[in-house]
């Protein structure tokens, strides 16, 4: 059931090939991810983070989801 930080990074990378992605956490369920991508420009945080959640393809879903907590920060490049 456990998921690795590198798995999360790979899923996000698939959707955002040019993003700066940093994923931290190693207990298999609780992570922090920081994603900086040009496609976020002009979008609010909810829109940005929905796009990241979509890239995780249901890993967060419900009690059966592998990923229990993901502290997410997103922004467009400065």
């Amino acid at each position, binding site marked *: 059931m456990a998921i690795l930080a590198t798995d999360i990074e790979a899923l996000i990378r698939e959707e955002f090939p040019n993003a700066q992605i940093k994923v931290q956490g190693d207990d298999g369920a609780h992570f922090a991810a920081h994603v900086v991508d040009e496609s976020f420009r002009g979008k609010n*945080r*909810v829109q940005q*983070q*929905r796009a990241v*959640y979509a890239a995780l393809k249901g890993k*967060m*879903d*419900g009690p059966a*989801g592998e990923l229990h*907590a993901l*502290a*997410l*920060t997103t922004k467009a490049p400065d």
Partner: protein
Amino acid sequence: MTDAKTQIEETVKANDVVLYMKGTKEMPQCGFSSRVAGVLNFMGVPFMDVNVLADDSLRQGIKDYSDWPTVPQLYVKGEFVGGCDIITEMTLSGELDTLFAENNVTFDKAAANKIREANA
């Protein structure tokens, strides 16, 4: 619309500030819910709390309603504002104060400033 969606829509439209959370504002049952409820309590914001743990259809329904995978979820004037991370960032940046001010939601500016001082 499903019953849960109808119920959620009625709740968020009838109340200026609604927090869907795990547990209640008096007794949160998750650290993330506790943090957001704590910020709102500390800032003196009048809000309605909805405990998703008390109703399985709401627990899933709120995620479908907002297209957002986690709880807590904060709504102001019927609009989804964000979850724990977003509310934390907005509190520290002052954006949450602005949002409340624009929507005529009562809050204690001095308390909000205190949170920012403590986290500076």
